[in-house]
């Protein structure tokens, strides 16, 4: 079971690299925020997997919960910040 968890964690890290590609390439700032948010939600799963690998789930669960809250607050604050920045994008506003 430990080996299966180890390879699941490696695969999850590979998926995070795929999301990181979107965060690097994304044409607008909001695309980068989608990539960062996806990486954060995968990190919560990865933290509990690391807890199972080290046989210390009781400690890593708290870290995962705190990380989930931190990711949520960061994304909300960044989206509130960037919605005021008109002219940040190359397209004309359509509203």
């Amino acid at each position: 079971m430990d080996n299966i968890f180890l390879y699941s964690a490696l695969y999850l890290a590979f998926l995070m690299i795929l999301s990181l590609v979107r965060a690097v390439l994304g044409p607008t700032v909001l695309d980068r925020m989608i990539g960062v948010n996806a990486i954060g939600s995968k990190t919560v799963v990865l933290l509990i997997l690391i807890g199972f690998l080290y046989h210390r789930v009781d400690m890593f669960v708290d870290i995962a919960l705190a990380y989930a809250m931190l990711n949520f607050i960061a994304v909300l604050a960044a989206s509130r910040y960037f919605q005021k920045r008109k002219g940040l994008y190359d397209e004309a506003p359509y509203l």
Partner: protein
Amino acid sequence: MDIMDIIVLVLLFSGLFFLTGGAIGILRFPDFYSRLHPAGKLDTLGSFLAMTAFALFNLHHFSLGALLTSLKILLIIVFVFLASPTATHGIVDAGVRAGLAPWTKGEKRR
């Protein structure tokens, strides 16, 4: 390999399957609004399935501490179900207010 391990493995692999769909969708959809569709839904469902697998696997050697840890994992599930759609809505709202035009058929992918 008893029946509990098989349930845990099925839940874990289906969760990884949905997370894979989310990552590919974020890479391949043509514009910002359609990219939020896999990012908002598939990540939530994938986290839910994988976390349920972990909570079940943690109860393998039953004790009061293990039960408490499983309840904390369930708390993370509830929080992700509340927070992830809210964050997605916040990003969409930022895009609409900044005046980002949606992609229509025939345009260049961006």
